Each structure stands twice: as C-alpha cells, then as structure tokens.
C-alpha cells in the first residue's frame, strides 16, 4: 500500500540537536511568559472546577437524593462517569508501557502527554465512587485496616477488588510518571534562570546526575515497570467490568464484559489523547515534534479499538439471542426500542460508526476532522456506559419496579465539573512540567537513521 507524505514523515524533525530539544521543551516551562491563551483556558477550566466543588458541597450537605437515583436505578451518573474516566486513563498507560515494550519509537513525542492524561483522568475517576457512597466520610471502610469493629472488607466482592485495582493503578501511574520525569526534572534544574526554580526542580530531581550506572539501573527499572503496568492496565478495567458482570442483572451478567470494557477504555483514551494533543501542538507550535504521523497513528489505534468494541457489541447481542434467556433478550431489545432508544442507537453510531471515517486517508490527515471524530467517539463511549448502567437497571426483574431514570441538574454539574478538574490539572501540567520527554527524545536524535524502524501503528 502506498502511503502519503504524512504517514511516512520522519518521527523526528531533521537536524534536531540535544541542545535544541532541551532549550525548546524546557523553555515552555522555565522561560516562557504566561500567555493570554493559557490564562483564558485556565480561567474557564477553573470556573468549571469551582462549579464541581459547589455541586459536591451541595451533595455532601443534602446527600445523594439530589441526584436522579431511585430504585431500581441506584447506579447513575456517578458510576457512568467513574467507568468512563478510568477508561480514558488506560490509553495513557498503554502508550507509555505497551508501546515502549514494542519499541514503537514514535510514542516518545506523546507519552508525557498521555501519561499526564492518565493521572488526571484517574483523579477525576477516583472522586466519583466516593461521592456515590452516600456516606462518603466513611470511605476508608473499604480499606483492610485494623478496626475496633473487628470487621474485614468482603474480599470476595468485585467492589473491593475494584477499590484495590483503582488505588493500585493510581499509585503506579504516579510513580511511573515521576520516574519518567526524573531526568527531565534534572534538565529543568540545570536550565532554570531563577534561583527559586532551581531549588524546586532541584529538590524534585533528587540529585539526578545521569551517570552511566544511574542510567543503567533507571532503564532496567523503567523496563520492568512497563512490564508490570501492561497487565495492570488490562486487569484494572477487567475488574471494573466485574462490578457489572458478577451481578445477575440482565445485560450485565456476561463473560464478554472484561474484554469489551478494556477495548472501550483504550478507545476512549486514544480519543481523549487526540482531543488534548491536537490543540496543544497547534498553540505551542509543536507540529515538528508531534507530526501528522503521530496523530494518524493515534487515530489508527482509535479505529482498531473501535472495531474491537464493535465486535464486543456484536458478540454480546449474538450471545443474548443464542442464550434464549427471555430476560436478557428483553433487555437487549429494550436498548433499541425502549425509553433509552435514542441513546441506544446513538452510542453505536458515534463510537463505532463515525470512527470508521478514519479509514479515509484525507480524514486521518485532517487535524480538525480527527479532533471532532475523537470528541464524538468519546461522547459515544460515555453513552455506551450510560446505557449499560442505566438501561439495564431500569427494567428490573419486577415490572412493578420499573422506572425511567434521568440525571438532574446536579448530575450534569458533577459531570461537566469533572472536566474542570481534568483541564485545570492539564493547564497546570503544561506550565510546570516538560510536555515532551526530553531525555528520551535526545536518545532518539542519536539513533542512526536505519535504527529508527519504519512504523505504522
């Protein structure tokens, strides 16, 4: 197959030197003045964050009754948002860990972005189950700590597995991020023009000197961490899916859940990566470092995962029919004909249908098109989780119980407000840490042209 210029473009601009990379990337942090665009973006994000805080304050005052929750739909927006945000994080780990193990050198330009995305998405995700608890001040009951009640958490419950998985994932993501950042913090320490910057980055860099033995141990640690993070990322969303699959609710109780949850997670993460990277590379003029080829590779990964998700839908529907379980069949039919029919059709159209446009080369090369396809795909995946959680629950086994659920204004405020948290953290990240992994980029610059393999995605 012939490819066009974008797709064979080198993953590094020609004539890039160690000093040029260090100067440019660290310059964004230690030299560049705070721009108007940054202030505007940060202000909007921060306003959303304040709205989030307000919604949470009201929630803590009055309780989960302000949400649209009822019986049988006792899991609403909070769980949908949790599943969706955790999923977004996964692509970041996938890019840092799996593509690292596969020697996909193109990941170097974007792995810092996507790792940051992981951290902030997990921060958003972690809040929702706690908000959902009803008595959020007792969240520590989930931990196995010695207590005067002589009680243990129920270790056979997927909800406890979930707590362990997400906590582990959050901690491992932070550690992985910090380790990746360590040599870059040393660069910032050495290039900062101001004393206070040197002190802060110097403390964070822990005295890193980049000696041969340090690098050698560092690389070994990084490799093993990538090896541990790879099964971790699969396990986390599999365990999240078991929250559903272990329940006997029609539409939940199926073994395809872990597989399809992981695929949906990766797809939403690749989409979110595109949503973040496309504007940043435009406003910070990083088009030579994050090229059209990087975006096309991300888009192809989004496409591939969307096909896996589509396969999940197909298998799930087929198995429902094949099982001849009347409850399952009823729930599956209601998805497309019942109270949630619009969302039921829309999510498949958005997260599997629209994404197929990426097959067209002109679409892959248009950043605007990719940006909007990524947004639509993420809306589709949110609706997918919404249908899964809400539509399955609202027609319970007892018809007298059936009730239609809709989010209230507080549900929407917490959802939209969580974007405030995510984006505020992202804007802060752009200012305080290098956006691209400088030490890894320097390593790439010195590879001989033949050593950089030709890589599609």
């Amino acid at each position, binding site marked *: 197959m012939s490819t066009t210029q974008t797709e064979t473009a080198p993953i590094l601009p020609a004539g890039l030197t160690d000093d040029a990379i260090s100067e440019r990337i660290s310059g964004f942090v230690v030299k560049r003045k705070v721009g108007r665009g940054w202030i505007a973006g940060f202000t909007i994000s921060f306003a959303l964050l304040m709205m989030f805080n307000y919604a949470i304050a009201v929630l803590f005052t009055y309780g989960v009754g302000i949400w649209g929750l009822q019986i049988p739909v006792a899991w609403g927006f909070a769980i949908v948002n949790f599943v969706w945000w955790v999923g977004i994080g996964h692509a970041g780990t996938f890019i840092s860990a799996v593509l690292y193990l596969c020697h996909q050198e193109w990941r170097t330009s974007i792995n810092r972005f996507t790792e940051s995305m992981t951290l902030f998405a997990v921060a958003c995700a972690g809040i929702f189950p706690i908000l959902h608890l009803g008595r959020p001040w007792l969240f520590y009951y989930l931990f196995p700590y010695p207590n005067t009640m002589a009680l243990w958490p129920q270790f056979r419950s997927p909800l406890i597995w979930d707590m362990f998985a997400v906590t582990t994932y959050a901690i491992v993501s932070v550690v992985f991020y910090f380790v990746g950042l360590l040599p870059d913090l040393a660069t910032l320490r050495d290039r900062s023009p101001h004393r206070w910057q040197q002190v802060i980055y110097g403390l964070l860099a822990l005295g890193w000197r980049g000696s041969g033995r340090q690098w050698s141990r560092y690389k070994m640690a990084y490799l093993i961490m990538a090896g541990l993070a790879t099964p971790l990322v699969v396990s986390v969303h599999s365990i999240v899916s078991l929250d559903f699959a272990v329940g006997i609710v029609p539409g939940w109780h199926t073994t395809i859940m872990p597989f399809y949850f992981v695929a949906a997670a990766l797809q939403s993460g690749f989409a979110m990566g595109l949503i973040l990277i496309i504007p940043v590379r435009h406003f910070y003029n990083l088009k030579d470092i994050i090229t059209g080829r990087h975006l096309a590779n991300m888009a192809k990964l989004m496409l591939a995962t969307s096909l896996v998700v589509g396969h999940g839908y197909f298998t799930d529907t087929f198995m429902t029919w094949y099982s001849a379980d009347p409850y399952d069949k009823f729930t599956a039919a209601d998805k497309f004909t019942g109270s949630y029919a619009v969302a039921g059709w829309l999510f498949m159209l958005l997260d599997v249908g629209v994404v197929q446009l990426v097959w067209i080369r002109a679409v892959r090369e248009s950043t605007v098109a990719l940006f909007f396809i990524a947004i639509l795909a993420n809306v589709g995946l949110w609706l997918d989780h919404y249908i899964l959680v809400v539509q399955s629950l609202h027609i319970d086994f007892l018809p007298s119980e059936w009730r239609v659920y809709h989010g209230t204004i507080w549900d929407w405020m917490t959802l939209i407000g969580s974007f405030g948290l995510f984006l505020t953290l992202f804007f802060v990240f752009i200012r305080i840490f290098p956006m691209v992994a400088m*030490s890894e980029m320097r390593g790439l610059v010195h590879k001989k042209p033949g050593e950089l393999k030709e890589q599609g995605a």
Partner: protein
Amino acid sequence: MSESAIYGLLAEFPGPDELVRAAEELSREGYRRVESYTPFAVEGIPRAFRFKPLSVAIVFLVSALLGAGGGYFMQYYASVISYPENIGGRPLHSWPSFVPITFEMGVLAGVLGGVLGMLLLNRLPRYSHPVSNVPRFRAASSDAFFLCVESSDPRFEAERTAGLLRRVGATEVNEVPR
C-alpha cells in the same frame, strides 16, 4: 593510594559514540572507577563499564513476590481465620476470588519497592556531588557527554590520566575539586 586533593578528572567528549569508545579504552587500560555523565541513556556504556543492573531486577522481583504473598495471606487470614463466615456452605478458602487482589498487591508492592530500590541503589536522593562543582557540568543534563575518572582509582595519576583522556578524544579535561 592516599587521599587525593581532587575528586577526579572530568573529561568532555563531543558525542555519545566518542564517549563509548573512550570508556572502552579506559576499561582496557585497567581503570575501574570511571563514571559517565550523559543527557540520556547511552547504549554501550554499561558494556564498557561491564555493568549489569541485575540488583534492580531482583529488588523488583522480591518486592512483587512479597506483595503478592502478603496480599493473598491477608485475604486468607480474614476469610478463614479471623472472620470465617458460612455462606451456604461455600468453602472459606475460596482462592479464585482472591486472585485479583493478590495480583494488584503484587504489582503495587513490586513498583513501589522496585523504584525505591532503584533510587537507593543510585544513591538518590543526594544533595550534592563533587562533579557538580565543575561549572560546565550543568550541560550534562542537556547536551554534554562526560567521563569522570575518580582519584580513588588505583591507576589514577593526575597528569598521566589527563593525557590518556586527551588521547582518547576528550575535548576538555577539568579537575574536579572535592
């Protein structure tokens, strides 16, 4: 050899390839207390120093196994010994449902222990180091490639070593004060 007034000699090289060649040359000459300082992990340096970071891998393995074992034991202890609960006669030691937490605890402990081990083996955190007394050393985190021959090396003799460093391609050789 007696305590020297200087920490060692810091030689700068124009690029990673020259650095690796010089490091190999020093190794052949019998120098053992040599260290490189580079802005990224230069391939070939560990081989030139005959260094394998196996200890890091072992720390990862041991802490991951301890974490997984501890995680499993915690669940076993809670479910069988401390708070046995008869749920329809199902076995108390229901090991399949203990697998997820065992795995997560293994990964968590492995990563935390391994990274801590990596940092400690690298003698980090460290407030200051003699090589940073050379003003030019700041560039080591951006675009400069250094070799430092430490004065504690048995073969170290300031003038002879400096000459050797120049001969193997150093563009500049500086004394590192303590």
